[in-house]
């Protein structure tokens, strides 16, 4: 018997299929949990969003709740705010991450401590960092005190509003702090895998730094970068804690608005909360599908690897 001690990483392509019963037994528990809990939750959400709530005496299917939400002038303000926050956070985090990935590859192994510190935000719950942002950014927070000490402002009232503000600055900063290490590490794993050969080829062909970045590095990291950005966009678009703690009271982001309706004492507001939740899910799903199709098209035209 020959033993292949070195792992190939291509198990799925080289190993014979043991048959559907074996595969079925292995994946069944996971599929069961996801279809029953996730699929079931989504389905029941749909039914309630369509106004089917037998426990509250509502037994007729109607699109009224979706119509109510879409006709509400606040809806588009909320949608705009939510999109603004998630797109800004994702874009800012992506730009910083590209820069950080290039810096960290050049630092190499010398700075183990930097690599370690850089990973800290990965494990920190969003809520903790949002609390710290309140302590730092609030009108009576650390930054305001520092600005006063430095003579930049003369009272807490002249410190710019950075939490519960209309630009969502505190929210965006929280997301950037939290997501930069995630995106950077996704990029770094590609950069480490591909090595420097291509860049050296580029160098011998007299490509400048700019050219090497735009024609070699960027196309190489694009698939990972795109996937990471998509995950960050999906998360920030549907997340509740951070805008709830750091956002203004009006307009609210969609998830906060959804929960407010859902937890309303008036049971009739509940289907509208669920309808907003479903609209959030629809926006995120559309974004994911569209970007997958775009990536496929770009790959066919040879724009990305």
């Amino acid at each position, binding site marked *: 018997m020959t033993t292949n001690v070195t792992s190939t990483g291509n198990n799925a392509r080289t190993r014979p299929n043991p048959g559907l019963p074996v595969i079925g037994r292995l994946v069944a528990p996971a599929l069961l949990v996801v279809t029953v809990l996730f699929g079931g939750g989504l389905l029941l959400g749909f039914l309630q969003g369509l106004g089917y709530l037998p426990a509250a005496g509502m037994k007729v299917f109607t699109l009224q709740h979706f119509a109510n939400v879409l006709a509400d002038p606040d809806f588009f303000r909320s949608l705009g705010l939510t999109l603004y926050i998630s797109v800004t956070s994702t874009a800012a985090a992506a730009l910083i991450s590209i820069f950080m990935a290039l810096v960290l590859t050049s630092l190499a192994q010398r700075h183990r401590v930097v690599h370690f510190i850089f*990973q800290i935000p990965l494990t920190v719950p969003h809520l903790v960092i949002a609390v710290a942002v309140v302590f730092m950014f609030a009108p009576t927070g*650390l930054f*305001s005190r520092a600005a006063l000490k430095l003579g930049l402002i003369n009272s807490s009232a002249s410190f710019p509003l950075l939490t519960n503000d209309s630009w969502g600055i505190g929210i965006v900063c929280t997301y950037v702090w939290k997501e930069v290490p995630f995106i950077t590490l996704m990029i770094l794993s590609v950069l480490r895998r591909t090595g420097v050969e291509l860049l050296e080829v580029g160098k011998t062909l007299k490509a400048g730094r700019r050219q090497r970045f735009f024609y070699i590095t960027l196309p190489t990291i694009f698939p990972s970068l795109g996937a990471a950005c998509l995950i960050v966009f999906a998360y920030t678009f549907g997340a509740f804690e951070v805008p709830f703690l750091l956002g203004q009271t009006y307009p609210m982001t969609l998830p906060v608005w959804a929960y407010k309706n859902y937890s309303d004492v008036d049971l009739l507001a509940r289907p509208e909360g669920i309808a907003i939740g479903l609209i959030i899910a629809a926006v995120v799903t559309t974004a994911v599908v569209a970007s997958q199709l775009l990536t496929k098209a770009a790959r066919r035209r040879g724009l990305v690897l």
Partner: protein
Amino acid sequence: MAAAGVGIAVLLPFVSLVMWSLSSRWFYPQLWPRQWGLRAWQYVFSTAGPQILAALGQSVLVAATTAAISVAIGIPAGRALGLYDFRGKDLVSVVLILPVIVPPLCVTMGLHLWFIIMGLAGSFFGVVLVHLTFCLPYAVFVMWGIFSNYNPSYEEQARSLGASAWKVLVRVILPLTFPGIMVAGLFSFLLSWSQYLSTLIIGGGKVTTLPILLFALMGSGDRPVAAAVSIVFVAPALLALLFSARYLGGKGIAGIR
């Protein structure tokens, strides 16, 4: 330069939390607390100790249970996806990744009614089930990665030497995939640990985990106490990071969100 920037940007939030938790008199616009003290920590561990320690215990119990179930279900699924090609594999992987992409909000709201009817709302197990929905995919995908670099011929060798199926599992499969199992467990634990909204909706105020308590404290406006509870809340995450750096070569944690 870059190293210092990273250090300051990452550590400043923690510095401010620690300073606030140790201050007893710190009024605007003082940049430095006028008086340091342990009032907040005394409050956390003695005055409100039973309540906060109960929430800590509840959080640990929920997250550990969720992680254990995620890993137990994630190992076989990851094995099938990593070792074999089969019909419908694309569909299976799309179904399993959906809970990662679709925001948990509407699913949790949908499940709520069902859980109320089944008596799971407001129960420990109900909260574990809703966390499991979002944690399991991470465990599956970690184990998928592990098993696509795994060599099952060791199992054949063990079997040819007369090992039972149980023995193969305990003496071959689990030791060989141990680092992956630890990472999958850590992912699930931390993800469950930081859940707020799903716990709030399904737990309905009856399952009080640390984030639920922390939100209530932020509403009360006692900054030193909120800072101290935040530190308690973040401690396991930092311990997990140290652990992974020590035992998994630091690479293990990449990809946690």
